[in-house]
């Protein structure tokens, strides 16, 4: 969680200072979901992600050096500078890719689950998306088909309350996005997405169901995007009071508090972990900066397999 947090804070900083071009969507405040979900996956499982995908990738074991290098557009990046923030993948660890299209990965994840089921493989797919994506047609089409075919997929809705600037509560007329699963006939569960244990527990149940061949689950993980939507977001659509209130529910602070209370973490260990993570993020930036640019002569390579 801390790697994601410090990585994303650095990314924001790099964009603000113009050291990294293009766009990026930080997942600050949503770390417990990425970590809680991916911690329940095994080898042979898969993840699909979103435009706000660095955290999912890191939680699934992605190398921060190569993620950072991709943000810098370097040859050593996961997509060799071809993809940028929203388009990177590492199939070898089951990470089937972030996605630049809101809702774009929901059908892909479901199709991967169909392939797993058809091959009688034991794997499952964890499919991340935001509250905004649940208003796309592809969400409803894919969830319906996953239901009729009992596909091994867990739909993880990160409800961070805003689709860019639009409040989730203004974009639907229902109380909880989890109830959308009712329309397709499988369980939908709403949980505190800032509570790591709650996420893990819910994912545990959903995984069990998927692995048993009983079909999908929709997990609505309620959270808050503590930073702006992307670079240049002035956050005019929400109040500073609201942001302050959510800061008190910072998932990293809560997790640390819990670990210390449980006697699993000392203040000294906590400081040491912070030092290590800060160093790792610095290393990632150095790696990215020192990596070679892609060769323009390779522009046309690889359009076709």
């Amino acid at each position, binding site marked *: 969680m801390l790697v994601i947090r410090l990585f994303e804070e650095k990314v924001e900083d790099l964009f603000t200072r113009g050291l990294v071009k293009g766009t990026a969507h930080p997942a600050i405040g949503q770390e417990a979901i990425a970590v809680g979900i991916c911690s329940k996956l095994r080898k042979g499982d898969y993840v699909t992600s979103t435009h706000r995908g660095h955290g999912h990738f890191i939680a699934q074991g992605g190398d921060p050096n190569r993620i950072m290098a991709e943000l810098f557009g370097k040859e050593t990046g996961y997509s060799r500078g*071809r993809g940028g923030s929203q388009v990177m993948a*590492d199939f070898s660890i089951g990470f089937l890719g972030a996605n*630049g299209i809101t809702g*774009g990965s929901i059908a*892909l994840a479901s199709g*991967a689950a169909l392939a797993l089921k058809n091959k009688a493989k034991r794997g499952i797919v964890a499919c991340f998306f935001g509250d905004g994506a649940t208003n796309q047609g*592809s969400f409803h*089409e894919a969830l319906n088909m996953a239901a009729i075919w009992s596909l091994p997929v867990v739909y993880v809705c990160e409800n961070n309350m805003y689709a860019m600037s639009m409040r989730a509560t203004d974009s639907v007329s229902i109380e909880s996005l989890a109830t959308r699963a009712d329309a397709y006939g499988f369980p939908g569960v709403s949980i505190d997405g800032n509570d790591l244990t709650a996420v893990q527990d819910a994912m545990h149940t959903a995984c069990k169901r998927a692995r048993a061949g009983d079909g999908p689950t929709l997990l609505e993980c309620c959270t808050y995007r503590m930073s702006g939507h992307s670079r240049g977001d002035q956050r005019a659509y929400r109040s500073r009071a609201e942001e302050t209130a959510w800061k008190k529910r910072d998932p990293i602070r809560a997790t640390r508090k819990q670990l210390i209370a449980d006697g699993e973490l000392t203040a000294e260990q906590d400081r040491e972990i912070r030092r290590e993570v800060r160093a790792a993020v610095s290393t990632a930036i150095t790696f990215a900066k020192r990596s070679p640019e892609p060769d323009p002569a390779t522009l046309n390579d*690889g359009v076709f*397999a």
Partner: protein
Amino acid sequence: MREISYSDALREALQEEMSRDSEVLLIGEDIGTYGGAFGVTRGLLDRFGPDRVVETPISEGGFVGMAVGASLLGARPVVEIMFMDFMTLVVDPLVNQAAKLHYVYGEQAACPLVVRTPSGGGRSYGPTHSQVFEAWFAHTPGLKVVAPSTPADAKGLMKAAIRDNNPVLFVEHKMLYPTRGPVPGRGSRPIPIGKARIARRGTDVTIIAWSWLALEAEAAADALAVDGIDAEVIDMRTLSPLDMETVIESVQRTGRLVIADEAPRSGGVSADIGVRVFEQVFDYLDGPIRRVTTPDVPVPASPVLEQAALPNRERIAAAAAELCGAY
């Protein structure tokens, strides 16, 4: 060689590839017991079962996206989109997802996906069941587009499309399904994607066409022959990537070019081929390039209006005759 229909040729290709490779599966609406809207997949559900012939709800965008996802894990889906007009619903998974995966993700990702779809007019199906959208997809780097006109090419190119590790849009003009021709039997070889076929050799004028209009172009060439004009007919077969080598070589010999394209005139494949010829062998042209296309109108339902809209053998022959100075 035995003669079978275009539909039967496609079914043979699907069946042979499904038997050869257990990763090949069919996905689409009403493709099971019903056999697909045009009967191409008839009998395949009984033969291969519901895991290999996956019947879907009416959710084109969703199931094409799922096919893309399945292909990432090694499946080789062949998706049927009931009418090409419905391809509007699947642009995102094809253009934003499938077409880019290999370019951005490199060797770890391939998308061996075929999307089959019946195109075109001629049956009075009206403006939302008669369109030709090849240009949109030929315009997308990373997608291949094929549109064979003969049963033999349909079989050979379907095999090639299924074995290809890239997403391929396979355009089947609905007027072609009942047409018959010689088709090689079991174990026949794929026909390479990206190679045009010279359907008829000639010296006076090159006529380029594909899909249904390739047949019309051949009929036009027969009519032109009566007037002493020796037309060469090139069936492009593949629209992306374009086999310009064959086109250029032909134009260098004939010096005259007619391009027949059922799509609306603006922004289409006909314009693309024309300007490439212009760029490469302007010096060889003895006259302007002529295009025979549908005007920039929706395809009307009325048979009278539809025939007024669509290119046909008479219009192709007239354009070629005019170009050759014979009125």
